């Protein structure tokens, strides 16, 4: 890796941009998970509508994914295990993007199920704009993972304390 690359990665401004990106992305994931946590049955239906997962995996995915979203969202905002949370969000966004591409390829006329079930609202239909939005969030997660190496938050406090000792 070149020296200029290190200088770019170590730029102090990343922590502030990273902080803003973390608060935004963490809030998005907290908002995204609440309805799925409250109504796993309807979220399972949303997943089944994508026709991507085998039947036996649908409920397990519907049960576990919102909890990962919740944990990752909280950790991202708190700045604790930030990189790991960003890594998980990156993986989740990748899976969402694959599912969206699949649904768009099939021409499925459905809501994306990202924030509330399609049974509850028709206001979030999948489209290329949904894909663009997910790509933006994927980019934010990648930015946090790659550039926010000294995040403002609990991780930083722990690091400072360990340095003092």
């Amino acid at each position: 890796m070149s020296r200029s690359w290190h200088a770019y990665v170590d730029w102090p401004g990343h922590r502030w941009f990273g902080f803003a990106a973390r608060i935004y992305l963490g809030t998005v994931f907290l908002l995204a998970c609440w309805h799925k946590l409250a109504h796993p049955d309807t979220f399972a239906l949303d997943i089944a509508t994508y026709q991507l997962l085998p039947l036996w995996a649908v409920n397990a995915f519907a049960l576990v994914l919102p909890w990962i979203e919740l944990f990752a969202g909280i950790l991202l905002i708190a700045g604790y295990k930030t990189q790991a949370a960003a890594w998980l969000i990156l993986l989740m966004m990748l899976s969402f993007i694959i599912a969206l591409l699949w649904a768009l390829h099939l021409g499925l006329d459905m809501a994306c199920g990202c924030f509330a079930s399609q049974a509850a609202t028709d206001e979030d239909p999948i489209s290329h704009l949904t894909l663009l939005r997910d790509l933006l969030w994927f980019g934010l997660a990648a930015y946090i993972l790659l550039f926010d190496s000294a995040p403002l938050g609990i991780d930083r406090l722990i690091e400072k304390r360990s340095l003092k000792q």
Partner: protein
Amino acid sequence: MRLSVLRDGFIIAALAVVFAIAVNAIRPDGIPLLAKEEFDIYVPCTESTGEAVSVNPSTPLISDPSSLIIDARSPSAYARKHLPGAVSQPFDWLAEQDEVNDRANQIARRIASSGKHHVVVYGDGGNPDSGKHWAALLSASGIRNVVYVTGGAEALQLADPGIGGAE
């Protein structure tokens, strides 16, 4: 990326799995961990990409010998009653988009070789209307002068029961 990040991510995901299973086990509206019954999912509707022009049931195109009449209803509905000379081409709502497009292209080739000048499609007149969808698909396949009958078979019967119209 550091190995500790991967490890922490794995631990967070494992904790999420434990919480998910535990909470689901105690909540009254919990769902089975492994789905066994098929979901009653929304059937994806095929998209019509061409322009579908509507005509009234009383259009002279229906009795015009240069018109090809297509009945888009189910084979059983066609068998019960149909317009004289109408060809049965049922629209399958459950078919995949590619399958429908292929079939539309096949029909379009047949229409092109039939020497007819107009194509009149009628469906069940419901919402969505199978006749309108076929007309749009044929139009998208390059067939010109494709129209569909507003209100479908039911409207045809209302407009002129004497023409042996639809059920």
